[in-house]
């Protein structure tokens, strides 16, 4: 990732993070204290919005100094964006918004003592904790797919080195090869993204390796935005993308890294490049803290995003059971704001209003052809339910789609400014 040495990390910790030197419990201090675990989309948003209220001390715990956004990483894969342009500095976020940033992994959470244990053994007390750890992979579900296999058959489902690896493989792939995408069953991070990836990989192949193909081995029989994607594939990439649903091939059950093969219940597919996206669950700290249920995800109160299993701990983002809300960056950001105002209300008595939960994703079919959805949600009977949903339609004019692709770029810069405080 970056060239930070241990000494520099130590220097940063000593300079910026007086708080870690004297671990203590928060009770009895002047300002209430919130600790946020995870500096991705949900965590950064919640930390930034809470800190801006200037009534609460906010500490953000995240091992990475920067965040590389998964959204737009399919554009990187196709050579349309640099990875640099998708990278945001968490230290600048912390400085500008007066957040204490601890560049470490949280290794344990003690809900009773209300403290977080950091990787160096220090303990950090909190009045409220927000956990936003994103996803972990259920590696056991695909035989032979472990961390070593992921270096040969990348998932690229967390942006960064995995995205670079997949891009390198795509670039060095020979013309005429098959780019296999193994897509997981629901629920998983960003339902339209495997198909956006297929579209943009085909865009790249069409220019540079026109005899090649994209093959999607799906663990589902239907997917998000299906009509829009299939319409676009026949318009932009005729004959280049093949989608095989689970009813024809069965689920992906194993991989063979040595031959770059994906084995489903029915068949074995040999790939030139294999992008294996494994089934997912909440980030492991959530599981270790008893925040997850049998599904592997975290149940929460949809008004406050407080865990229904551990009081005083809130969870936002991909890690939660979001009801009808998809696991998207937009959802994580929307949940984070609702969570922020609920935490502030609990700690400082500020007013509470019904949360406005919203998701709107831009999905690229080609560089100048994108579609959007817009979904509003409301809490109902303890769950998050869709209120209204609108989505682009098949048959819209090229002009409309070009405008959406242009808006997507504007959305990206406004959204990342909202999450990371406008610095990249």
């Amino acid at each position, binding site marked *: 990732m970056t060239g930070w040495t241990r000494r520099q990390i130590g220097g940063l910790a000593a300079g910026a993070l007086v708080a870690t030197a004297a671990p203590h419990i928060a009770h009895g201090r002047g300002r209430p204290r919130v600790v946020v675990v995870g500096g991705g989309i949900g965590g950064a948003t919640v930390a930034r919005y809470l800190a801006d209220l200037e009534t609460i001390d906010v500490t953000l715990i995240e091992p990475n100094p920067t965040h590389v956004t998964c959204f737009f990483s399919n554009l990187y894969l196709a050579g349309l964006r640099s990875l640099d342009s998708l990278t945001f500095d968490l230290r600048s976020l912390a400085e500008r918004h007066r957040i204490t940033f601890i560049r470490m992994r949280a290794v344990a959470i003690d809900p009773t003592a209300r403290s977080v244990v950091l990787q160096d053994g220090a303990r950090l007390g909190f009045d409220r904790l927000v956990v936003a750890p994103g996803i972990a992979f259920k590696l056991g579900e695909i035989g032979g797919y472990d961390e070593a296999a992921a270096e040969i058959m990348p998932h690229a489902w967390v942006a960064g080195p995995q995205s670079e690896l997949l891009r390198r493989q795509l670039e060095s792939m020979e013309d005429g090869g098959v780019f296999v995408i193994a897509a997981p069953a629901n629920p998983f991070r960003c339902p339209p993204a495997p198909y956006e990836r297929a579209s943009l990989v085909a865009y790249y192949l069409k220019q540079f390796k026109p005899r090649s193909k994209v093959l999607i081995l799906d663990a589902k029989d239907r997917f998000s935005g299906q009509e829009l994607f299939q319409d676009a594939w026949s318009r932009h990439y005729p004959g280049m993308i093949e989608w095989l649903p689970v009813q024809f091939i069965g689920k992906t059950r194993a991989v063979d890294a040595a031959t770059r093969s994906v084995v489903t219940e029915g068949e074995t597919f040999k790939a030139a490049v294999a992008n294996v996206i494994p089934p997912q669950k909440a980030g492991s700290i959530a599981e270790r803290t008893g925040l997850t249920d049998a599904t592997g995800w975290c149940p929460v109160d949809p008004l406050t995003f407080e865990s229904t299993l551990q009081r005083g701990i809130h969870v936002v983002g991909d890690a939660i059971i979001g009801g009808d809300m998809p696991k998207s960056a937009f959802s994580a950001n929307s949940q984070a704001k609702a969570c922020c105002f609920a935490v502030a209300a609990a700690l400082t008595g500020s*007013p509470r209003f019904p949360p406005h939960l919203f998701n709107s994703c831009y999905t690229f079919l080609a560089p100048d052809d994108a579609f959007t959805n*817009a979904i509003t949600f409301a809490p109902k009977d303890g769950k998050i339910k869709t209120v209204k949903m609108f989505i682009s339609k098949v048959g819209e004019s090229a002009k409309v789609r070009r405008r959406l692709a242009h808006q997507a770029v*504007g959305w990206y810069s406004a959204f990342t400014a909202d999450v990371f405080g406008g610095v990249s």
Partner: protein
Amino acid sequence: MTAEPVAAIVSLARGIAAESRYFPGALLSAFLLVPGVSAAADTSQGAQIAATCASCHDPTGRGQGIPPLTTLDEQTIVKRMRAFRASESPSHVMHAVALSLGDDELAAVARYLADSAYAGRQP
């Protein structure tokens, strides 16, 4: 560090914000004195709803592709949102947002946005 003077100006701006319905110009110029400083957000209903707007509309108005909200007055915002509520075109995204806001909520967010606190809030 210039923490003290900056904090003083920010709290001045916040003091004015309370009366900003009457002195919107004063508020704006107070914020212009402190470029790059993040002014405290409030927790009023308008502010809480406006947080949703900021997921797509750059609060500094610098954004491209998605129209800025910084130049709009309260009545224009209400008028446009009513039009978005009535029709799925030109934007199904804004149609969804507009349908999700009751009249009181729309009034609160329009006032908050137009009060320039949004315009002056540097990300």
